[in-house]
């Protein structure tokens, strides 16, 4: 199956979803111009049409190839680590969270030297903390 057929199908569904969501927007009874629904309706229509165009005239890339690249070990694990780091950002001390994120992601991306894994994350998290705290006067989350 061609990747664009899947992308086109999903775009078409997204357009339909937007159409439904747009119909739920409250509008004022008497408005002198186009309602708040008009523009999102147009966007939904554009999404549906472009989705249809993609599905009907797909490019050469195969779905299996694209999914294989999308789910490549490094990309996915880095994405998960990044999501966890970002969503837990407010709860975790910046210095600890950043150190842990750097150690984990450097390991994921192929770093195996203990010296590199030990020194760089500590140095980078400390430098960035000091830079943001005293250079840009940004209060990053801390436990103390």
């Amino acid at each position, binding site marked *: 199956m061609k*990747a*664009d057929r*899947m*992308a*086109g199908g999903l*775009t078409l569904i997204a357009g339909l979803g*937007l159409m439904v*969501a747009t119909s739920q*927007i409250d*509008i*004022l009874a008497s*408005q*002198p*111009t*186009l*309602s*708040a629904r008009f*523009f*999102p309706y147009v*966007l939904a229509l*554009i*999404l549906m049409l*472009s*989705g249809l*165009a*993609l599905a009907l*005239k797909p*490019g050469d890339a195969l779905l299996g190839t*694209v999914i294989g*690249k*999308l789910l*490549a070990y*490094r*990309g*996915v694990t*880095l*994405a998960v680590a*990044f*999501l966890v*780091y*970002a*969503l837990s*950002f*407010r709860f975790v001390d*910046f210095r600890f969270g*950043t150190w842990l*994120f*750097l150690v984990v*992601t*450097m390991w994921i*991306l192929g*770093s195996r030297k203990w010296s590199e894994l030990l020194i760089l994350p500590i140095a*980078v998290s400390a430098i*960035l903390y000091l830079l*943001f705290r005293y250079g*840009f*006067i*940004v*209060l*990053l989350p801390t436990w103390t």
Partner: protein
Amino acid sequence: MDVISLGTIIDAAAAVLQLNILFWILIGVLIGFVFGAAPGLTATTGVAIATPLTFGASFEVAMALLLGIYSAGYFAGSIPAILINTPGAPGNAATALDGYRLARMGKADLAISLAVVASVIGGVFSIVVLMFAAPVLSNFALKFTSVEYFSLGLFGLICVSAVSGGSLAKGITGAAIGMFLGTIGIDEVGGTMRFTFGMPELQGGVPLIPTLIAFFAVAEMLLQASSHLDASLLPKQQIHRILRLPGLMISHSWLLLKSSLIGTFIGILPGTGPTIAAWIAYGQSGRRKAEEAEGEEIAAVRGVIAAESANNAVTGGALVPLLTLGIPGDTVTAVLIGALLIQGIDPGPFFIIEHGDLFAQILIILLIAAVMTLVLGLGARRILPKILTIPARILLPVIGVLCVAGGFAIHSIPFEVGIIAVLGIAGYILARFGFPMAPIVIGLVLGPIIEINLRNSLVANDMDPTVFITRPISAVLLIAIVVTLAWSARRSLR
């Protein structure tokens, strides 16, 4: 034009020619070198990450840092293009063709030197155009009504959808996604909620800078991580004498001028960017004829000069619609809108009239950044390739941390950090399916402009839609939209 009188320029020079401002321009240029030269990372990524850091900074410092990255980043993408045939950014793809050819001849040093000088000449040319064209266009833009703004916004969006790579359908889908993100929040006209899904944080809309960081930096970081890009094989270089450069430039002065003009003009068109400018200039370089008459080396020299001067001439050109109409000329200027808003400045036709001093400061900072790019680029051209050897396993995690910390630094709102993560991963998935990022971001910026001006135009004209074709500027822009769409659809169908 009295808005940038000599007195204003002198005052601006006094404000900019200070040690701390020069220091921040230098930092910006160095960051621009790193982001431009690291394959996959771009000047846009660098500016997107650095923008939140300017929150507490003065206007001069913020512009020094960001314009330094902008100016140097567009050139530095030519380094990996020349040395490993991998453009640092899409705008340097044309450079790779002949730059890498020179490198294979053992003349990478000559190619990098040419790229530096041509980039700086193109950049300075566009700054001069910006200096003279922007005030005139700004005055002209005062006559624009919401009808013209609607058509111009739509034109910009169609341009970027059509030329940003991939199929037209994907470009338009990206633009629609961006515009959808722009509709989230309280409707400006009716005051009703749209797509906030009960989240009060979304009432003010999707925040611009975190979204830019997500689509340009995070998505790119994830793409690079899954692409195993590691550049360490550098060709051996012959040392080239810098004294030979002026002669080469003079003998190609017409080509330089023509390419700089192309780059500046493409930059002025809203929503376009360096990629198309570089390819058009490369196509016009006459390198094929030169190859037959003067040999492969001179043909390659012409190719590098044309592509790089046009590529960098986009910088000043793209600032023209931003500073006169509030409409970004390319992706970096879309990010710069966020930086100007952080400074409390709303770019548009009143910017130069009300802030002539700040406009002059921008010009001077751009000129200084160009000079620094020239000096550092030529001086360190044998060291710069070392940037390519920074391993991805170190660079990418650090960029991830900068995205999160930088995103948090804007308003200290953790929700915005969450937006960066969620939209960044969404951007990665879209990019893997071949959807270009530029239309999404330009759609986010231009979507609200298009919608509000469409609604205002209809109110002001008794809901008569023919106003868009009866007003001449709008009619011309709409015709240009139809032509662009037809050309792009034909190209896609082939």
